[in-house]
Structure formats: C-alpha cells, structure tokens
C-alpha cells in the first residue's frame, strides 16, 4: 500500500489518556491514521499497545482525550456499534467460537455485515448471499478446504487465521490486528502477512493498524511505525527511519534483542 498525496484522515486519537489507579497505561497519545496506510504499533511489554487497541475499538473509554473515526467521536462506543461503522479487530489470543465450523464462523460476520441477524424465519443455508460471502473470505485466507472443520479442531495457526478472517468478513474500512502472527512459526509469518495484505486489497479495506513484535515484519510491510513506550509515543515515522534509530529500537526491544537486530542488520542474516 502506498501513501498518496492529499491524505484523508480516517482514525485519529487526540491526547488520549487512560489510567488504572496510579498506573498510566496511556499518557497523552495523539496520532492520525490516514486512508490507505498500513501502520504498525511497536513497543515493549506494558507500553500500552493493547490498551491503545482497546481504546481505539471503543471497548475502553479513555479518561481524557478523544478518538475520532470517520469524523465521529467513538470513545467508549462499544465494539458492536463500531463494527457497524466499519472498524473491525482481531485478538492477540485466539478468540473463536469453538463449536462452530469455519464456514459457520465466517457466516456470523457476514450475517452481521448484511444486517440479517434479526431474520428469524429465513433459512441461513439457503441464503446464497450469506454462504457465498463466507466462502469468499474462507477462500482469501486459504481456509476453503477446511470449511466444515470445527474451530476447536483447527491447528493453532489456522485458528488465528480464522479469527483474523472473521474480522475481514465484516468488510471494514479500518482493521486493527493485535499481533496477527503471535504464536505462529516464523516460516508462516510472512505467508500470513502476504495473505493479510492481499485480502485487504481484495475486500477494499482502507487502513490496517497492527500491533506486531516481529521487527522484520514491521519493517517490511508497514508504511508507518508508531513506537510506544510507557504510554507515550516515542517515535512516529517511516520504517526506514525507525529502523536506523538505535535508541528507539533498543527501547522497544530491550538491550539484548536490540543488539541482535543491529548485528543482524549489518550482515542481513536474520
């Protein structure tokens, strides 16, 4: 995804603060996500990344500050309304309906997107619009062969994909992915990112915001990187610039990891 001239803001946070007791999880965070951007949020554990996602998806209301999505203040609006406005998210930990088949799982999202949830007497399986919509997403994520498998019986990586796919099935404008590749083998990570990018193009998702730990993925796929530290924004820039900023990388990754990365950057081995 490339940035274009005359960017349109789609999601913006202004001076967002969230504290739990004396602990400031978010301490004045401001940024704007534009249409067409792929933004990665990085930061050490406890930097406030998941709190930020929770605030941005309206699950948690900030103590002060505003979150504006498509020109509307969405602080504390709740995930259900937000999904109808065009924002979806996936979870850090696998979050599925264990007893649902892959197809049924995706159908929940499609039913909700089409606003057909209150159809009490129409047949679900005879509704081509619903089944086709679910199959389309299953296909994008390479899950079509497993469409009848129960979510709980899927391998870990597929569970994760299914969770992400269900968010895509909502056809959102903005999607927030909380560590889409965590718990997945390194070899599969790139494949997942490729899938995400191509699926978002197919579906017409305008912007992706992801929390990601794998720096290689962050640097190779993002248009922009926001580094969080102790609830504050440490840096907000292009991957190329962040990558070279030893201070940022060392704060975000910790000393040990940081040395690994910088040595690996030199010999391009990692």
């Amino acid at each position, binding site marked *: 995804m490339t940035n274009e001239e005359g960017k349109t803001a789609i999601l913006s946070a202004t001076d967002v603060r969230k504290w739990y007791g004396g602990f400031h999880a978010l301490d004045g965070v401001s940024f704007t996500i534009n249409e067409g951007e792929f933004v990665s949020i990085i930061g050490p554990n406890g930097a406030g990344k998941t709190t930020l996602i929770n605030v941005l998806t309206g699950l948690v209301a900030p103590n002060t500050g505003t979150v504006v999505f498509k020109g509307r203040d969405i602080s504390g609006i709740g995930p259900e309304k937000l999904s109808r406005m065009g924002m979806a998210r996936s979870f850090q930990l696998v979050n599925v309906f*264990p007893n649902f088949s892959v197809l049924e799982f995706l159908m929940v999202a499609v039913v909700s997107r089409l606003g057909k949830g209150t159809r009490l007497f129409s047949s679900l399986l005879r509704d081509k619009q619903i089944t086709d919509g679910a199959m389309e997403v299953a296909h994008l994520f390479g899950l079509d062969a497993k469409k009848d498998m129960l979510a709980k019986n899927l391998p870990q990586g597929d569970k994760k994909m299914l969770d992400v796919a269900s968010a895509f099935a909502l056809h959102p404008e903005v999607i927030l992915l909380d560590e889409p590749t965590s718990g997945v083998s390194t070899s599969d990570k790139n494949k997942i990112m490729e899938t995400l990018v191509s699926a978002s193009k197919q579906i017409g998702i305008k912007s992706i915001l992801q929390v990601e730990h794998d720096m290689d993925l962050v640097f190779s796929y993002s248009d922009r990187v926001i580094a969080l530290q102790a609830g504050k924004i440490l840096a907000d820039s292009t991957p190329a610039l962040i990558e070279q900023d030893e201070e940022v990388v060392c704060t975000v990754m910790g000393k040990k990891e940081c040395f690994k990365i910088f040595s690996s950057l030199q010999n391009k081995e990692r």
Partner: protein
Amino acid sequence: MKNRQEIARLKSLKLPLVIVIGLVLLCVPLFAGQFFSYLMLTFFAYAITVIGFNLLFGYAGLLSFGHALFMAVGAYTAAFLTSTFALPYMELILVAAVIVSAILAALIGALCVRYIKIYFAMLTLAFGMLFYTFLLKFYYLTGGDEGMRVLRPYLLGIDFSGTPKMQFLAGTYYIYAFVILAILTFVMWKIVSSPFGLCLKAIRDNPEKAEYLGVSVKKYRWYAFVISAAYAAVGGALLAPAVGQVDPGLTYWTQSGTLVFMSLLGGFDYFFGPLIGGIVYILLQNSVMSLTSYWRFIFGAILVFVVIVAPGGIAGVIGSLVKRRERRD
C-alpha cells in the same frame, strides 16, 4: 463404504422419522386408553414449553430457573378468560397468553439478559418466586392457594360442553394441542436454522467475539427470552384446560426445575433433545409414581446419572452411537 451409505441413509431418514413419530403420536387416542392419551396431552403442553425454554438454554446458553412463571402466565390467562371474563375461545386464550407473556418477558428480560450464568439463573428464579407469591397472596384476584377453575374452552369457536370430559380431552382437544405443537416445533426449527439462530449460538459460545463481529449480544438474548416466554405461555395455556384448574404451584421453582430436568435428560444440545426428555420424563414420572411415593428420590438419582454419565442426555447418547458407526467406517 457400505456403512457410509448407511449413515447417509440414516440422516436422510431423519425427517421421515420425525413425521412418522408425529403421526404415531397423533394416532395415540385410536389405540391407547384415554389415560395414556391424557398423559400425552400433558406432554404436548410441556413439549411446547420446553422447546421454547431450550432456545434460551441450549441455543443462547442462558439457564432460566424461573421459566415456569411464563407457563403460569399462560395457564392463568386461560383461567381468567374462561372463568372471570367468560370468553372461552381457545384461540383468543392463546393469543392473549402470548401477548401477556411477551410483555412481561420484555420487562423482566430487559433486566435479566444483562446478567449471565448463575446470576441470570438466580434472577429468573427470583422473578418466578415473586410471581408465585403474587399468585398466592392476591387471593381475591387469583384465588390464592386454591387457584382458579379453568372452564372448557371453545375450539375454533365450537362449543364441546356436551362431550364427556375425558372423551373431549383424549379426542378433539388432543388433536388441537398436537397441531399447535407441530406448528410451533416447525416455527422453532425455522428460528434455530435462521441467521438469528446462528447469532444466538455465537453469543453462547463467545459473547465477546460475537460483539466484535457486530452481533447485538443483549438485544438477541432479549429476543430469545421473549420468544421462549411466549412458547412457555402457550404451553401453560394448553395445559390449563386439560387440568381444569390452575394454582400457584405451577410457578413454584420445582416446576422450573422440571423444565431444566427435561432438557438435561433429553439433551439440550440437540433440537429434539428436550422433546425426548419431556416424553421420557412424563412417562417415567407416571410409572415411578405408581410404584413409590418417593419418586423424587428416583428422579434425583436419574439426574445425577445423566449429568455424570451422559451429559449430552438421551439425544447425546444416540448421537454418539451414530458417530461411532461413522468412525467404524
């Protein structure tokens, strides 16, 4: 290969099987005695209640422990309309029962669906007992613990007061109740196989995820609550003329417990499970009661057995037997 064909054949036999069982039930008065037909009539009333109950329990994952309240609402509607208002039209009774219970359930449900698990169960239990006390204490309205008489209703506008009681109940009224059960079972089947049914199951399995997929968790739970209450009221309204009398015992918590028992016994994970549970419960209760007055003791033991050995209920046992055949293939 042979087995797989057999399984496919078994599966395609499901609908014909349901129809055959339905026809056999319909013909019970032709070959069985009046008393047995009367038992089956009671089953029809409970069957309607329990399939409604299971929309909430099995599909939405909410265990109501006060569902007898709505059965009582239906039964007292029948009593009021036939005795107090002298409007003994069964269709009117059914419609009134649905309206009254839906209004009451809309109010109670709006509060209850904010809670889940034990809190939901306790709240519904509390409302059930509240209604019990109301029926008991407002005796000038409800007849207190003596209850109210339910006069014989007109069916489709026809007065059957000339027919002897058991002949009416095991005859015309039996068929009438059966047809309503058949229609409501079909309607419930449509509901659970609709997009709404899918969303309910999603809420049951993972409400947080459902909400992120744009499913209005509380709203859908509330719909399910109101629908299941309306079913219970129809069940109660059909039961009342069969018994000829209503009393507050109808909404006592053990009545709600009976509905839970039926669902567990039959298997709440299966659409027809509660129906199987209902018929087995009623036949078993009848035979055990004739043997010993400690029938509750026996039923307690059965409940323990079901929960520990066959948590999927009778339908679950049948289902796993079918699956085992499938795996043998």
